[in-house]
C-alpha cells in the first residue's frame, strides 16, 4: 500500500507544480507588466518603472516563479499590488467564510445524497424510488445560483425568515454566522446532492447484484444488515470518486454563490481583485482553489487504499 501512496504522492507533486506553472504563466507572464496594467496606459514611464521595481517585477520570470513557489510553501504569498498588505492575510480573512461554507455544503450534500441514494436503492423500482429519482432529475437541471435566487425569493422576500444576503460574521455568535450561511449552503448542496444521489443509487444497486450479497443473506443476515455491513463499503468506491470530483465544482460553486448572497468570501475577493487588476491576489486565490481540488482528489485515492484491501496488491 505504501508503494501505491508514494506513487500517488509523486503525481500529486507533479500536478501541483504543473498547476502552479500554468497559473503563473497565465496570470503573471502572459499579461505582461502588471505595474503598467495597474497604473493605466497614460501613466508616466518613470512612475511605472518605479512601481515595477517596488513590486519586484523587474526580476526575471523564472526567478519570480521560483520565488512564488517557495513562498507558497512557506505561506509568504507576497503583497497585494493594490493594498500593499500580505496576500496571505487577505485570503485567510476570506477563508473564515469560505471554508465553513464549503464544509457545510459538502456535509449537507453527502448526508442528503447518501440517504436518498441508499433509500432509493433499497426500494428499487418502488414508488419512493421513482419519486426521489424524478426529483433528482430536476435537481440536476437546476443552475445552483438560480436555485439560490428562488430560495431568497421564498425565505427572504416572501416569508422574511432569513436575510437575502450578507454575512453576520462569527464575532457576534456562531449561530448568527451559520444562519447567514444556511441558504448559500442549501443552494450549493441540493444540486450536487441530486447528482451524488444518483451515483450512490446505481453504485448500491450494482453491489446488490453481487454474489457475496447472496452469500451474506444465506448466512442469515437480514436485508438491512447486508446493506449496512456488506454493500455500502463496496459501493463507497465509485461514490467517493464522484465526491472528489464534485469538490472542484463545489468550490467553483462557492464563488458563484458568494456572489448571489453578497458574502465576503474568497469568491468575492477574486472578483474584487480582477476589478482592481490585483493579479497577484487572483493568482494566489486560483492556486489555492486548484491546489485544494488536487489535494482532495489525492486524499480520496489514498482513502481507497484503506477502504479497498485489493489495492495493496494491485499497486494501481
Amino acid at each position, binding site marked *: 500500500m505504501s508503494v501505491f501512496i508514494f506513487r500517488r504522492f509523486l503525481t500529486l507533486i507533479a500536478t501541483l507544480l504543473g498547476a502552479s506553472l500554468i497559473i503563473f504563466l*497565465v*496570470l503573471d507572464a502572459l499579461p505582461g507588466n502588471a505595474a503598467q496594467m495597474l497604473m493605466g496606459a497614460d501613466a508616466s514611464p518613470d512612475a511605472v518603472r518605479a512601481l515595477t521595481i517596488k513590486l519586484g517585477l523587474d526580476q526575471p520570470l523564472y526567478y519570480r516563479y521560483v520565488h512564488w513557489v517557495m513562498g507558497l510553501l512557506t505561506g509568504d504569498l507576497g503583497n497585494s499590488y493594490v493594498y500593499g498588505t500580505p496576500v496571505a492575510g487577505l485570503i485567510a480573512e476570506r477563508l473564515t467564510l469560505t471554508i465553513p461554507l464549503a464544509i457545510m455544503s459538502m456535509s449537507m450534500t453527502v448526508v442528503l445524497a447518501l440517504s436518498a441514494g441508499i433509500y432509493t436503492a433499497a426500494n428499487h423500482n418502488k414508488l419512493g424510488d421513482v419519486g426521489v429519482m424524478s426529483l433528482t432529475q430536476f435537481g*440536476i*437541471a437546476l*443552475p445552483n445560483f438560480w436555485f439560490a*435566487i428562488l430560495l431568497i425569493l421564498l425565505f427572504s*422576500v416572501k416569508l422574511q425568515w432569513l436575510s437575502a444576503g450578507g454575512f453576520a460574521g462569527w464575532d457576534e455568535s456562531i449561530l448568527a454566522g451559520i444562519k447567514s450561511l444556511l441558504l448559500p449552503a442549501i443552494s450549493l448542496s441540493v444540486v450536487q446532492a441530486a447528482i451524488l444521489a444518483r451515483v450512490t443509487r446505481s453504485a448500491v444497486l450494482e453491489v446488490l447484484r453481487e454474489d457475496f450479497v447472496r452469500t451474506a443473506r444465506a448466512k442469515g443476515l437480514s436485508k438491512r444488515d447486508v446493506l449496512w455491513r456488506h454493500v455500502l463499503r463496496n459501493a463507497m468506491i465509485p461514490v467517493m470518486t*464522484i465526491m472528489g470530483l464534485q469538490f*472542484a465544482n463545489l468550490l467553483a460553486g462557492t464563488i458563484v454563490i458568494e456572489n448571489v448572497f453578497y458574502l465576503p468570501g474568497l469568491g468575492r475577493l477574486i472578483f474584487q481583485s480582477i476589478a482592481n487588476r490585483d493579479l497577484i491576489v487572483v493568482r494566489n486565490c486560483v492556486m489555492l482553489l486548484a491546489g485544494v481540488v488536487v489535494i482532495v482528489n489525492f486524499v480520496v485515492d489514498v482513502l481507497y487504499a484503506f477502504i479497498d484491501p485489493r489495492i495493496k496488491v494491485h499497486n494501481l
Partner: protein
Amino acid sequence: MSTPISASVDVGAATVRPQVPTGFWRRALRHRSFVIGGTLSLMVLGAALLSLVWTPWSAYEIDVASKLRPPSAAHWLGTDVLGRDIVSLLLVGARSTIMVGIIAVGIGITFGVSLGLLAAARRGWTEELIMRMSDFTFAFPAVLSAIMLAAVAGPGMVTSITAIGIFQIPTLVRVTRGSANAIWAREFVLAARASGKGGFRITIEHVLPNVLPILIVQATIQFALAILAEAALSYLGLGTQPPQPSWGRMLNDAQTLLFQSPMLAVYPGAAIAVAVLGLNLLGDGLRDLLDPRLSRER
C-alpha cells in the same frame, strides 16, 4: 456550478454495439425520457432559431418609459428594468446560450475525442501522459479558467467559450478512452491488426464508429453542462456581455429587483432548467436506445 454527471464515469468499462440498432425511431418514439427530453430540447432550439428571424420586440432597444411592465397582450411576460420585452430577451438568450454551448462542446469534442482515441491507440506513456493531463484539467472547473482568462483578457463570449471548452475536454477524453480501449480488445480489431492495418486506420474504420453511440450520449450531457456553465459565467459577468442578451445576465439584472419584480428572476432560470432537463433526459433516452447495456441502473 455544473458537475460531471455520473454517466461519464461508469461508461468507460462498457463494451459497445457496432451500429445503431435497427428500428431506432420506432423504439425511440415510445421511450418516455427520449420523447420528453427531445421535445424540450427542440423547443429551446426552436426558440433560438426563431430569434434569428423574428422576436416580438427588439431585444436590444431600450425603452425606459415602459420599464418593469407586468405581463400584457403586448408584452407577454412583461418588460425588464430597461423596458425590454422579456419574451424577446429569452428568445435571443436561447441563441446566445446555444451558440456558446455548441462551440464549447465542439472544442471539447475535437480535443477530447482525438486525445482519447490517441490514448487508446498508442497506450504506454502516451496514454499515461494524456490521462494525467486530463486528470490535471479536472482541477480547473469552468469558473476557475474563466476567472483566469477574464483577469488577463477581460470577460466576454470568447472567454466563456474557451473556459467551457477546456472544462469539457477531460470528461470526453476519459469517456472516449474508456470505450475505445474496450473496442481495441475486441476480436474484430485483433483481426484487423493481424491483417496489417495501422493504428490510425483501425481507429478511423473500427474504433470511432463503435464509440460513436457513447459519444453522442456524452455530447448531449456535455451540452447540458455547457449551458449550465454558460449561464453561471454570464451571471457572474465573465461571459456574454450586454447588450447581447443572455439568460445568466438576465438573472443577474433581476436579482437587484427581487422585491419589486420577483418574476423577472423566475423566467430565465426556468429557461435554463428546461434546456438542461431536456438535454439530460434526451441523453438518458439515447443511452437506453443506443446501448441498452449502459442503462442497467434504471
